[in-house]
């Protein structure tokens, strides 16, 4: 079995190759904000970003920093802080290729990926412009329908991301990662070829030692490398551990509307200081 590596965040993101398919999970569940800042610092290029199933601050940041060639998403927004300005601008200008999806399609395609299936059917979606603009999706007639009944069903190709980038509350020193009720972290890790994880803390306790903790754990079988990143989701929240930094997200939402202000934001909050200093800078 592979040995999970323990690295710094900057070392961890060297394992994300340019031009790869990168999956990241929605804000407030498992947003890998600090790892994304490190990716931007390392100058990653040409990413094919998959948001699971939606994107927020880290997606907008990656797109704005010119790291992304295409994005498959069910929606990118800053929630109550408004639309995601860099995403909107990049789609409008044609700078990134957009593949609009719908949340259950992203999950279902990843579930096909984790089962090693080539495709998976999904109800709904037929007749929408979402379906019409996806030439990689197909419609078949349900082969199990009652005799003579026509029952068209959407088929989605399985998704197996090259890399899943996850942020979680904790990992143990054996490389097992606590996901709790946010089981989509496990779904994405199962489907991905490589899973990189940042965590708030690394604990001595073996998460696999009791059934109670093992039930909420992604085992080290799926985890390639871990880095500690305290407040690693900041400025978005992480489960019930900490909430959003509303003042900072407001500051970001305003800065991201303007090219020069966004460039200043990158210099002040991404290219330089570690995360603790950044939190102080907006407190």
């Amino acid at each position, binding site marked *: 079995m592979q040995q999970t590596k323990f690295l710094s965040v900057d070392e961890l993101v060297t394992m994300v190759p340019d031009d790869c398919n990168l999956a990241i999970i929605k804000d407030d569940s498992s947003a890998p904000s600090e790892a994304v800042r490190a990716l931007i610092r390392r100058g990653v290029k040409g990413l094919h970003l998959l948001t699971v199933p939606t994107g927020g601050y880290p997606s907008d940041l990656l797109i704005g920093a010119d790291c992304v060639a295409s994005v498959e998403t069910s929606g990118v927004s800053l*929630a*109550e802080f408004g639309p995601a300005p860099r995403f909107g601008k990049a789609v*409008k200008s044609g700078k990134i290729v957009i593949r*609009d*999806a719908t949340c259950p399609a992203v999950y279902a395609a990843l579930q096909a990926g984790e089962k090693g299936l080539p495709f998976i059917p999904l109800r709904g979606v037929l007749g*929408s412009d979402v379906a019409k603009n996806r030439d990689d999706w197909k419609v078949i007639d349900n082969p199990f329908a009652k005799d003579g009944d026509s029952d068209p069903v959407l088929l989605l190709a399985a998704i197996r991301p090259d890399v899943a980038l996850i942020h979680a509350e904790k990992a143990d020193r054996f490389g097992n990662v606590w996901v709790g009720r946010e089981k989509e972290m496990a779904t994405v890790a199962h489907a991905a070829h490589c899973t990189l994880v940042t965590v708030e803390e690394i604990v001595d306790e073996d998460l696999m030692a009791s059934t109670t903790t093992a039930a909420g754990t992604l085992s080290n079988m799926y985890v390639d490398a871990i880095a500690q990143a305290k407040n690693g989701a900041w400025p978005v929240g992480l489960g019930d551990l900490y909430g959003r930094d509303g003042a900072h997200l407001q500051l970001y939402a305003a800065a991201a509307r303007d090219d020069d202000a966004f460039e200043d934001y990158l210099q002040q909050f991404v290219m330089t200081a570690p995360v603790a200093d950044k939190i102080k800078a907006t407190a």
Partner: protein
Amino acid sequence: MTCKTEELLISLIAPHLAECRHICVGVSSPIPGAAAQLARCKSNDRIVVNLLGDFRHNSFTSGGQEIFDMAGQGRIDAFFLGGGQIDGQANINLVGTGTYPQTDVRWSGSFGSAYLYYLVPNVILFREEHSPRVFVPKVDFVSAPGLSPPEHHRVGGPKCLITGKAEFSFDPIAGRFTLVSVHPGYTVDDIVQSTGFDFDMPDDVPQSKEPDAETLALIRGPVAEQIRGLYPVFADKVFA
């Protein structure tokens, strides 16, 4: 009006949920969330309410996929959808205006609408802004259609549309909205002027009913407390 607009809207949505067993509410939806909690209070907790994004008022334990799996099985009775544009056939657009993909205005995306609209029996369309730029003759992008051809598996769809100015019902056979009531402070003419699509209406359109004292007490009491955790800014503004 003796109550705030938000309280009126909460009280107008809740009766549509009274027969439900299980209501789910999407993210960034304080008024629908409060309406679902009001329906739950009035049902003596018979109704189950799940607020997405909330860690306390949320029974899902299997990740973001669980709500869609439940909807696929028919285990969710009501959900809320909105749209940057909504047209007279109840098509909704959450993607943008102009020609796709390089739309003039780009919104977030379709989220779960292209699935839940087909599978949740009672979809309540809710959009506070009632203007011709929202309620258009034809949406520029169909995130999810209001109607589907008979061969498409569809057990769900729009039941009604509630806005900051009025309430409409939707007839899936005719594929048209009917004006049900107009909120205090507005006239039928205001609604015609602010709606970009054709709709039906009776000869006499009543005024929307304001919440009674008992309902207002529930909204300002237990309902306010139940949504404060997820929507502190909204709760402070409306229930201060």
